[in-house]
């Protein structure tokens, strides 16, 4: 039996873990919303500041899940955790900023250029956590629970013991982020089925 054992949802002004609010945006803070969340985590990972918003979204979602479930890293071997992410905007948010860097500001930014692919977030998560299992980032027309169910099943059947999955909707201020952990043979959690993937991951069904 496979279950969703933890999930994190981040909207434009709130962050939820397993349905409970863990942080709300402080409109008076000089920090961006994602920087506020990074500070809330109270961790030291300076590379966070260099990431684009898509990678920051995946990073924050996974870190909030890890804080809720500290055993995530130690419970599995490096190649047993698969990564399964998707969105419908690809890396357009950073693509636009990169285009502006050379069209409006005169010089193309190398640090923006390296984030002009959506699957870079998977590399960031792999580096941070030593998740060296299978990985997939799909760009879909819209949120599709069946994609997570079917591709997740393939990942489990080909040797993965856990799947960290997520929908990372980031584009020009829009924030529709969900990250969820799927595990096998765990007594707690929500059954890994279509209804619960929608509950945990659908941007239209924030907690």
């Amino acid at each position, binding site marked *: 039996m496979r279950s969703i054992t933890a999930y994190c949802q981040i909207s434009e002004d709130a962050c939820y873990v397993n349905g409970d609010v863990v942080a709300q945006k402080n409109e008076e803070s000089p920090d961006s919303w994602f920087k506020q969340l990074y500070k809330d985590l109270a961790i030291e990972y*300076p590379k966070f*500041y*260099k990431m684009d918003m898509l990678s920051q979204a995946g990073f924050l979602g996974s870190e909030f899940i890890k804080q809720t479930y500290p055993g995530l890293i130690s419970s599995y071997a490096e190649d047993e955790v698969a990564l399964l992410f998707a969105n419908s905007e690809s890396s357009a948010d950073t693509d636009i900023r990169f285009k502006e860097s050379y069209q409006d500001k*005169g*010089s193309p930014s190398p*640090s923006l250029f390296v984030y002009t692919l959506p699957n870079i977030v998977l590399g960031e998560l792999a580096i941070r956590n030593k998740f060296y299992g299978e990985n997939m980032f799909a760009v879909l027309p819209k949120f599709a629970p069946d994609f997570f169910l079917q591709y997740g099943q393939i990942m489990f059947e080909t040797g993965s013991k856990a799947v960290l999955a997520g929908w990372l909707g980031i584009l020009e201020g829009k924030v529709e982020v969900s990250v969820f952990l799927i595990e096998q043979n765990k007594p707690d959690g929500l059954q890994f089925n279509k209804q619960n993937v929608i509950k945990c991951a659908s941007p239209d069904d924030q907690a």
Partner: protein
Amino acid sequence: MDSLKEDLKKHIIEELNLEDLQVSDIDDDALLFSADGVGLDSIDALELIVLMEKFYGIQVTNPDEGKEAFLTINTMADYIEKKKS
């Protein structure tokens, strides 16, 4: 020279998104690309090349020259002074 080094540090922090660092955290002789120093990486090296042209009008086209110039804040400032004189 000191104000050049201060400016360099400010530009590096801003352009390379080193938001956890202050100007005072970067020693003039700290190795920029060492984990024991500032801890920059290969993408940061490209950003330094862009920064040199953007703020000081200097094109770093010789990789060996860049390697020497980007060792520390001191060597960067020396390189800028040399190129401008």
